[in-house]
């Protein structure tokens, strides 16, 4: 046989690396985060609130791996305990945005033209403001606090979800399977709930996963500006807000929470984008 190959099959007899190391690192980071959320006390070496003025501003050492802050509290412990509120705010805000956005989008997609127009113009107005500015406006209106922070970040992300769900709904409401269900004589609401909603929401869930990173950043940014959790609580954004004052002599105070936020957001985005690629049937 003199057959010759036009294209050579790749990577035979080489060491098998994980297909995408970045993806594995992202999952590893997410795993660590979830551990920190689930068992903060088991992981952290000391009490995050235990202040000791004599130990203030310790640089990273073998006793305090990441150093201490201005009140002598262990930074590692604070970071670990901070994972729960930081992630919770991001997740809750995303859920608020997703829920409201889906409802709006579904309504607009199914409603008669004039209502669709009305809802979507309202969404356009929201969309015209930058997310963070919108969140700030909402906080100024409703006041400070964790729950208002969640609402603010959540509402700011509504337009994105609403637009996508509406577009999906518009396609799906004329899909063959929806018309088939109508011809079977199912009630309109039943058709919407069993066929339109689940199919419209599916791609939005992926967007939400990517948006989760954004929500965490936004929440941290608002905390940094002082609109979030009150000072003693370990929250990444709030930690950064305090650290800002000591940038010159204790830069690690700022570095660690900033790194934690960056890694978290990057990991979640990487995982979300991988999910998106898979759902689009692209090779990874």
């Amino acid at each position: 046989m003199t057959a010759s190959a036009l294209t050579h099959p790749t990577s035979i007899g080489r060491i098998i690396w994980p297909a995408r190391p970045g993806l594995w690192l992202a999952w590893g980071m997410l795993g660590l985060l979830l551990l920190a959320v689930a068992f903060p006390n088991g992981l952290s070496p000391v009490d995050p609130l235990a202040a000791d003025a004599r130990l203030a501003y310790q640089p990273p050492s073998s006793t305090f791996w990441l150093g201490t802050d201005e009140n002598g509290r262990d930074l590692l412990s604070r970071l670990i305990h901070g994972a729960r509120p930081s992630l919770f705010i991001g997740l809750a805000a995303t859920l608020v945005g997703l829920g409201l956005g889906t409802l709006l989008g579904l309504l607009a997609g199914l409603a008669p033209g004039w209502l669709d127009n009305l809802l979507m113009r309202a969404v356009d107005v929201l969309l015209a403001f930058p997310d963070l500015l919108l969140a700030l406006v909402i906080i100024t209106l409703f006041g400070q606090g964790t729950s208002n922070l969640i609402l603010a970040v959540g509402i700011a992300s509504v337009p994105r979800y609403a637009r996508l769900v509406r577009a999906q709904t518009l396609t799906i409401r004329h899909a063959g399977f929806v018309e088939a269900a109508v011809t079977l004589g199912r009630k309109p609401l039943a058709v919407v709930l069993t066929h339109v909603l689940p199919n419209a929401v599916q791609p939005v869930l992926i967007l939400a996963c990517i948006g989760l990173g954004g929500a965490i950043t936004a929440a941290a940014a608002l905390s940094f500006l002082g609109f979030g959790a009150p000072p003693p609580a370990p929250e990444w954004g709030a930690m950064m807000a305090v650290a800002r004052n000591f940038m010159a002599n204790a830069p690690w105070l700022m570095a660690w929470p900033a790194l934690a936020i960056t890694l978290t957001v990057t990991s979640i985005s990487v995982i979300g984008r991988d999910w998106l690629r898979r759902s689009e049937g692209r090779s990874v």
Partner: protein
Amino acid sequence: MSLIETQPPLVDIRDLRVAFNGVPVVRGVNLQLHAGQCLALVGESGSGKSVTARTLVGLTGPRAEVQAQRLAFAGQDLRKLDEAAWQRLRGGRIGFVMQDALGSLDPLRRVGAEIEEPLFLHTRLGAEQRRLQVLELLRQVGVPEPQVRARQYPWQLSGGLRQRALIASAIACQPSLLIADEPTTALDATVQAQILDLLEQLRARDNSLLMVSHDLAVVARLADWVAVMRHGEVVEQGSVEQILQDPQDPYTQRLLSAARAVHFQRPVAPALALVDAVNEQPVLLEARGLSKVFVGPDGRPRQVLDDVSLQLRAGQTLGVVGESGSGKSTLGRILLGLEKPEQGTVAFAGQDWLALSAEQQRQTRQGIQVVFQDPLASFDPRYTVLRVLSEALARAGVPRGLRRTEATALLERVQLPSSVLDRRPLELSGGQRQRIAIARALAMKPKVLVLDEPVSALDVSVQARILALLAELKAELNLACVFISHDLGVVEQVSDQVLVMQGGKVVEQGAAAQVLGQPRHPYTRALLEAVPSLPEARPSWVSRVAV
């Protein structure tokens, strides 16, 4: 023949093997195409015919592993080409026409620019010469008003004109070989006939042509040599006369008989007595004076239906024929109550169906069910077959515990094994999907079934089987059907009555044998003449003796 064979073939393929991710799609294909001839690759979807054609232009994609003992075009070994050499070949010496003209033309570029591109890439013509050449090419492929058309975008052209433009871009550099992959599949019968005429003219000008098609009738007209492919192998090849009249391989024989079964044969006009006997049946569905106007994308209203009336009697099949845009699908949707007409009435079992409230309509919907053209789109992508059927059975009032048994019974009725119950429609073949769509419609025990192009997306042999199933069910359940199709062969086979539509109007209506056997309206005649013909099978001994 002997004169041609002394020259080396233009295309020489020996033992071609293509695999995707280790799965073989083409397994050892041998083909030769001589200059000035037309070779047709025929086979059903998934037979590897398109992939074989694409290896000649190096467009099998990055994941394909291509091997061949010989893969030569005009004496040049294609196995050793690099990307730059491929680019010189494609569009220059080999032209490629794809099935989907809308998909193959860039929506943001004017048609003229699209045709000019190969000239720009492969010739040294100046801008003005290129422009003149584009107009000349458009004229050659029979596009009226080339100056106007060259400045339009693909979506502004009709399907037939788009296909012509695509052919013009493929022949722009006068390639030695033109490859046409299903060039007429997406087109209406009359347009298909025009495109085939054009390809025939090109062939008459000494172009070599490689045609890929699933339709034997299309091939019969153009090809000198036919290769029948199945599961990545050429099961039989020979001259077109030999393949059509004396096929040796059982698969070719089956393909041919399936094609003949759904192929249009002009019926003999019946005796009047027969027509009268049929009319004794009670009228189940009646539409009067239906009119419907849609507002087009350009904001101008378009009359989709204009004063359409029809009658459907119990146990009968009404075939609705027309080209795309004739309003036949809209008619079906109005009958189903999915669309409201501006004027006219629809009566179902004596009841004015459109005057009912939405809720009342919902209650009576069970009696009239639908099967769509694209079976995959008509199932919720998340659902298994069991869930699809259960949804219908639930509406029909079957209690939860009995649904699996009932679903199995339905599958049996459409001749599917119960093992498909837990699979998703996506994992099934086109024919199986359409059977499930029929099973779902039957779950409601309907009196009327509206079938909108139910076999258009299927291979010929599968078409024949689905039509046989429909005929069986119709007889068994005394179903009345509205059968919407652009395919006269299919309509002729299933219909008792036929309604011919053009531009939203009914141009001819009557007993199937009457309308199709002795068409009165010129449009019906044009439709009938456009159907490509498959030569009649001669008894096999005739050709053997001749040889």
